């Protein structure tokens, strides 16, 4: 084998290369966003972020996340519980289906809703007759976001639930607990950190999603532009400061997510390998 000195050198070179690449690919863009943002002073940034359209975009993004994240938390937990606890025909299929949104291009994830609910879609004329607006309105944005972010919660819970097994729940049930009692006193405490972890990732993606919501948005300023779409709109307006200010706000969200994620991973015992 090679002598230890060479091995150490090789390790050193590899680590340096990784660090250089990391800096170039991850830190540099982040740095660019923040320097560009503050290039014209804090006042310009605050002005851009308190612009009525910006406030509408922020509010819309929060609304979309506030609906889709709890929805996914509930459905994701239910799905993970079903798959983790029971053996039934089609279990593998269901597991695969949960991951479907990961393998489908976000544009397709948006387009399916247009094909279903758009004016020329399957349910288009019925919806139009009843004056229900799904596409190019809030429901469409939520649907697209829910679809894209569905796997996060379920995928965070599944390995843990399989690992823990049903023994504790069975014990609770034999001791006379009701189904809900078992869930709230036994199941939920056992999975709480993993659940939070999943919710966190789900939220980050829900707020940052671009492709799927771009398709169903209709780009109405102040109404259907979420923050990522608004960044694009500002960029196309030649409003660099505005675009970078909103982008910085989104990046800040990513950084907070990252920090919380590290904390949560520690809570979960560090032994957990990354699922994503």
């Amino acid at each position, binding site marked *: 084998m090679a002598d230890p000195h060479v091995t150490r050198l090789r390790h050193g070179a590899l680590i340096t290369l990784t660090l250089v690449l990391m800096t170039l690919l991850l830190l540099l863009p982040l740095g660019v966003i923040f320097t560009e943002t503050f290039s014209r002073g804090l006042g310009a940034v605050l002005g851009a972020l308190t612009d009525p359209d910006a406030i509408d975009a922020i509010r819309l993004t929060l609304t979309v996340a506030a609906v889709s994240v709890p929805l996914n938390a509930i459905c994701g937990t239910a799905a993970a519980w079903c798959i983790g606890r029971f053996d039934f025909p089609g279990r593998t299929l269901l597991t695969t289906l949960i991951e479907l949104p990961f393998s489908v291009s976000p544009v397709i994830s948006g387009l399916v809703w*247009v094909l279903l*609910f*758009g*004016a*020329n*879609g399957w349910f*288009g004329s019925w919806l*139009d*007759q*009843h*004056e*229900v*607006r799904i*596409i*190019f309105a809030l429901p469409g944005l939520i649907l697209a976001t829910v679809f894209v972010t569905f796997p996060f919660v379920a995928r965070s819970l599944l390995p843990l639930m399989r690992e823990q097994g049903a023994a504790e729940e069975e014990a609770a049930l034999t001791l006379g607990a009701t189904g809900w009692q078992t869930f709230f006193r036994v199941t939920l405490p056992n999975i709480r950190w993993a659940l939070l972890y999943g919710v966190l990732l789900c939220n980050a993606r829900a707020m940052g999603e671009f492709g799927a919501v771009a398709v169903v948005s*209709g*780009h*109405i*300023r*102040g*109404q259907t532009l979420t923050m990522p779409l608004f960044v694009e*709109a500002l*960029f*196309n*307006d*030649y409003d660099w400061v505005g675009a970078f200010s909103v982008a910085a706000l989104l990046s800040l969200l990513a950084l907070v997510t990252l920090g919380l994620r590290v904390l949560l991973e520690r809570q979960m015992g560090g032994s957990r390998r990354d699922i994503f």
Partner: protein
Amino acid sequence: MPRPLLTRRDAITTAAGALLATTAHAAQPTSLLNVSYDPTRELYRDFNRAFIKAWKTKTGETLVVNQSHNGSGASARAVLDGLQADVVTLALAADIDALAKHGLLATNWQTRLPDNASPYTSTIVLLVRKGNPKQIHDWPDLLKPGVQVITPNPKTSGGARWNFLAALAWAQRQPGATDASAEAYIKALFHQVPVLDTGARGATTSFAQRGLGDVLIAWENEAFLVRKEFGDTDYETVLPSISVLAEPPVAVVDSIVDKRGTRKVAEAYLQYLYTPEGQEIAARNFYRPRDTATAAKYAKVFPPLKLVTIQDFGGWDKAQATYFADGGMFDRIYVPGK
């Protein structure tokens, strides 16, 4: 849940229905949605402000005008898919014709307003870097070795189709020109294009922000805007010897305004584009005004240019089929990555 009866389409129930059904917006003022194309953002930002004020003075009604901007074709597509546009203000008549073909508005829409329903016009010019280092003065100069030309994709961009036609107009009018020689010129021209953006605004950003290319074929208004936004000192506009008269049309979308009960205000909105104030706003945003008085006032800004119209190409239906449809001239001459 009370559901408005909308099977009968008389005016009163539909107006009431629109109000009731969008419960979340029930208490809000009348709103219009103007679905437009990319380069008109600044124009309609100014124009909406003026119209809202004028409408308030005239009727006492508080109005909200919402804007949606995208590539012209993409915008038309969204309206087809159900985007509730009261008015469309697009880059070319073909895109509104597509809506008319699907029954969203009357097929005679272009005769309902003056000047082919185009309240302002524009043309296609060449934008070069300061000092014109590659000495580009007219269409043939674009073929000089080493000149990189930036223009968006005619398949997706309305502006790009006007660019294509402007270049073609020059080639067709050269001494001894034939169909083959014109096509050869266009083919050579697209050999000089390193990247096709999907929209006019994207192409402008490539040229001005990312510093790609030596010359941008662009809407005249877009060229003015670049000089305004990025500094007059960095760019120069070159007026070619011949170009096209681009007539971006506007129309009320009948099926939507009748459902929403907004026909009156939507029609007033478009008619206001033709008033002296509307024309003035268009001119200030670098669109050539139709009104002769306003045009005279801005004569220095918009020098006269030899222009052909879409009729010289046989109208949009024919131009679309000959040049841009699948198997058309663009498909024949364009080889991606070359």
